[in-house]
């Protein structure tokens, strides 16, 4: 997998008089893990929500595999091959772990059929279990999702996003709220994912980002501040000034 997968052209977003993003032009190649970083309020989440269809940009265009995405409703983005996780854990709490992933797998196949028996769609079971296996949750498949630990719920979210076999996986702070142990597990999981997939990561934890990513995009005050390999970012004086110097590697 090589070549350009997603291109954002002059993306801007205003909320009333507030300019959250302005003139973001960036493209992402297939098959690598790219991180988007920036201090709080830099516009990372807004940018992320635009890439996943949750928000519509005020200006600019999104191209995915050469096709324009502008104007598509959010639920169509998955069908195009873009899948996401959320910063705040976002699962189906009262469904079993397996059901959480299974229903996500079903979305690509059928929605409104009321005549088929869903229990007989065994291919969904296999796909759901494969995704659970990939994030190490297969042993917990039968329990309710709400009874998982925080870290496991985050992993479940990734399984839910993975099961659609997305060409682009968007992960919004997958280690948010995690302790050091859980973070370590998640980093290992992200490393495994990055081997095979195109992943776009929003993260706060700088050390982790620089270790994981092939490329880092830095946003600041809604603008693109820097874009390059982790080493370039680390030595970029602008980035150091606005971001890295603030605290012990946390923004």
């Amino acid at each position: 997998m090589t070549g350009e997968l997603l291109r954002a052209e002059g993306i801007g977003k205003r909320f009333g008089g507030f300019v959250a993003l302005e003139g973001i032009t960036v493209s992402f190649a297939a098959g690598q893990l790219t991180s988007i970083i920036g201090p709080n309020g830099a516009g990372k989440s807004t940018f992320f929500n635009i890439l996943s269809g949750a928000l519509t940009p005020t200006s600019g265009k999104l191209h995915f595999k050469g096709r324009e995405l502008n104007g598509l409703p959010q639920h169509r983005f998955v069908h195009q091959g873009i899948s996401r996780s959320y910063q705040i854990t976002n699962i189906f709490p009262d469904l079993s772990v397996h059901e959480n992933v299974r229903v996500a797998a079903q979305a690509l196949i059928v929605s409104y059929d009321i005549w088929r028996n869903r229990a007989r769609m065994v291919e969904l079971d296999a796909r759901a279990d494969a995704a659970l296996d990939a994030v190490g949750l297969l042993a917990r498949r039968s329990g309710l999702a709400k009874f998982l630990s925080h870290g496991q719920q985050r992993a479940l979210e990734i399984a839910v996003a993975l099961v659609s076999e997305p060409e682009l996986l968007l992960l919004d702070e997958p280690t948010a709220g995690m302790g050091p142990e859980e973070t370590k597990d998640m980093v290992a999981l992200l490393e495994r994912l990055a081997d095979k997939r195109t992943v776009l990561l929003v993260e706060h934890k700088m050390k982790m980002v620089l270790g994981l990513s092939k490329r880092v995009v830095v946003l600041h005050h809604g603008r693109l501040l820097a874009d390059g390999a982790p080493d370039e970012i680390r030595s970029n004086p602008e980035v150091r000034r606005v971001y890295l110097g603030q605290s012990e590697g946390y923004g």
Partner: protein
Amino acid sequence: MTGPSSGEAVAKPASSGLAWLLDHRVLLSIAVLAVLPWLLPSKALAVNVLIYGVVVMGYNLLFGYTGLLSFGQAAFFGSGAYFTGIAIGRYGVPWFAAVPIAVLLSTCLAAAIGIVSTRTRGIYFSMVTLALAQLVYYVALQAASFTGGENGLRGFTVDRINLFGLQVNFLDPINKYYVLMAFAALAMWFQSRILNSPFGAVIEAVRENEQRARACGYDVERSKLVVFMLSGAISSLGGCMLALHLSIVPLDILHYQTSGMIVMMVLLGGARSFFGPFVGAASFLILEDVISLWTPHWQIFVGAIFVLFVLFLPKGIWGTLLDALDSGKARR
């Protein structure tokens, strides 16, 4: 509302007793309804349990399984009854054709109300459904030449029916009960199909987490509209049954108090349980029957009991019973 979804049990039929109950929920429910006239104090009460059970079951699809609290379900209960009565009385349509026509027209009404109301969420959805249902009430009140206005719709008595060449006296309460039970059975089969279908998984996802369902690739708004229409269709069948039963459609059936009663019944019986609506309808109607014998203020007592249920038995009678049967396993 806690507890695993019926979907889990559907997806993994286990060998436990409860799973067996779940797999045969339609047949078991029909079996219970078949002996109901002999369990209840009067045949008339049994017919009412049947009718309200179907109405509440349709509502349960929307409220229990999809998590949409509508205060306007009376609109479809009423429209089913009115359309049946008008088709038979005014246009001379035979009863067996009037029922599907009424359900179809009521589904269209549900589509119209659903298109507007499912764009809103939470309390706004409840209020919009309430307002639109009251609109239907006032239309029925004003269009007196069609609906009989305040006096209700009259003049469409179904007394003898022809079942495959067999003449049945429909005024006999037992005959009437079993003919109407066939409709209830059909509604239960349909509801069970929906719950077991891929779309059944979609409404669960919408109930659990709208945002996540959308991010998974589901069109949440359209799914809500579809379930709103299915729910309206099933509840309207209860209305058709009422029209055939009473040979008159009282205007009150469209009033928001009826919608409130439907909400109370589903909560008494157990939202999100398959047979709960019938249990809820039966408990409510029995309470009304018994308490109104010794006080005209029966609503105070029913209201108090309802409050106690919401506080202490949020899963309702049937839901709590099933939980007790098998704590932690899926619900019927």
